């Protein structure tokens, strides 16, 4: 039973990751990991700040839209 639940969790994680990728959502955890390795002196943003920055950028001056 336990492994079954684990498997479902794992599957949900994969689906979530694909969904995020397809809609080009940035992954907060991996960004924090990146900051910690490459720029240890910088304090990483909170998840809300990170998301807001992303939205500003995505719909900002360099936004694209297709037919």
């Amino acid at each position, binding site marked *: 039973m336990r492994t079954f639940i684990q498997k479902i969790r794992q599957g949900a994680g994969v689906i*979530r*990751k*694909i*969904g*995020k*990728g*397809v*809609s*080009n*959502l*940035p*992954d*907060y955890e*991996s*960004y924090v*990991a*990146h*900051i910690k390795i490459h720029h240890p002196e910088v304090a990483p943003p909170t*998840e*809300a700040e*990170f*998301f*807001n920055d*992303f*939205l*500003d*950028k*995505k*719909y*900002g*001056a*360099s*936004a*694209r*839209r*297709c*037919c």
Partner: protein
Amino acid sequence: METQPSTIRKKSNPVAKALIWIAVALAGGISLSVIALQRDEHINAIWFVVASLATYAVAYRFYSRFISNKIFGLDKRRATPAERYTDGKDYVPTNKWVLYGHHFAAIAGAGPLVGPTLAAQMGYLPGTIWIVAGAVLAGCVQDFVVLIISMRRKGKSIGEIAREEIGPVGGYLALVGVFAIMIILIAVLGLVVVNALKASPWGMYTIAMTIPIALFMGIYMKFLRPGRVGEASIIGFALLIFALVSGQWVADSATLAPMFTFEGKTIAIMMIVYGFLASVLPVWLLLAPRDYLSTFLKVGVIGLLAVGIFIVMPEIKMPALTKFVDGTGPVFSGNLFPFLFITIACGAVSGFHSLISSGTTPKLIANEKHANMIGYGGMLTESFVAVMALVAATLLSPGVYFAINSPGAAIGTDVSAAASTISSWGFSVSADEINSLAQQVDEESILSRTGGAPSLAVGMAHIFSKMVGGPQLMAFWYHFAILFEAVFILTTIDAGTRVGRFMLQDLLGNIWKPIGKTDWMPAVYITSAIVVAAWGYFLVVGVTDPLGGINTLWPLFGITNQMLAAIALIVATTVIIKMGKTKYCWVTLAPLAWLMIVTFTAGWQKIFSQLPKIGFLKQAEVTKQALTAGKLPPTIPTEEAAKQIIFNNQLNAVLTGIFMLLILGVLIDALRIWGKVWFKKEELPTSEDPFKQTKISEVS
């Protein structure tokens, strides 16, 4: 995390491989000849699917590899921008399939659905050939080559690349061109939605409900559960389905239905107000949540349609060619050449994709070798969407197709009169047939619902209801399809207005600095107002145009979109020539030449044709004569309307002329560069990033 067992590669057998490719090519060839030669009986849609998929497979395997190997030398050892500039945000090495999904979702819009539906008036054959051949030889090539060029330049935009590789003049002209096409695109897509929602309380209510749903999702993602897009989208989707179901209650209620029944002009004005609000409000509140909802809906419905066509295997009722190849058709005017090739723009080749291929996607590619799948393969998928749209339009009986898609000026507003007019064209249909279909989909009328969306929705409802629910659910599926089209068209309208506003601020900021400041509210309001006024004008004119606005606006959009593709191909050709690969420059030069011939012939005819149905100037002249003689035709009710028609046609003629000059300007500027390489034998530097060895050992 478990580690995946490493896949053991079987030794490839060259003979078996060759046999498989010969089989694929044969399957494609046989299907194509069935499509092309079948005359007397109805042909099954599955032939279209096989013919297109086999052609795509061969083109992908051989032509895309030819381009990547011979011209660009794509190299899996060469570090991509995602690796060189990795920052965890904009530059992130991404899984090939996930990125393919993202790229496809970003390029697919309403264009490949509407164009083929309109083009079906000439029969299924010309549209199918252009969608498939145009994609593999022009559309995919453009998307793929632009993606590679941008990937080799830090993911720069096509405008920047044009400036660097051609010069400041070409670059600036390209920017103006992009802004202009944006305005026309928003107006024409807005018109498609207005025509789908007018006098339709079910549709109007459901679409109106998407706004509070988006607002709720926005607040959820901002305050309740920051950044939880997945959760918000699932809740949003559930609410959307509720809005769809409750739409029927609204439509059937005597008190509620009138509250959601509007004339076209009123809906157009609502849309203009909405566009303005979306442009000035913070994005998290309205724009972003709608965008997510629409992405999931889009990918889901397109997948569902593909499954549906495989399961239902509908028969195509439209003949291979209709008599309207001579240009006298009611849906759009003009001969097969050049007008078919601009009516189907997206789906065969779309200039808009060059903006996406040089935007987000090149910054996310993990390995150069993935570009084939993402750039070339992404466009193949879009082309397949266009094939499916063509199937959905041509499975209707031709009489019904023309009843939905012909403007009132061509068939009148009375059902029995319309039925006899259409039957006189050789497509027999009865008033009963038209009325009962309207009843089935729970709409007041399906007559003259031009723009493509309603007839596509009827076709899709046909397929979906055969899979789930039968005739009882026809109305549900019809409105589901309308919802799907309207939601992502509205997402193009609101985000497009915002993008247009930024472009305008950028362009005007060169003249007067403060107007370029994106955080100065007066500048934001002024430029947003200018942008909505620009597309709003074309939209209102299209809605009130008694001759059917789609007739005028869609060709204008098609011409501009194909011209944008020409700009992208000019830039691509310039880069290939500068790389010293002149020997292979026909890869982009051939589609470029074709697009120049098509758009310039179409543009010339739109301005100067002596047939008032086609030529803008002639139409203005004829209307002017009628006005001064006091003999206005019944389709033009007032003097005001006549004056409006005269002015609009003159304006459209001027616009078309400006577009043509714009492209000529870019081409001449580029020819200057080509000449330097070809005749003066100069070696010009390209702005390509130098080679750098990748450190990523194996990217999944």
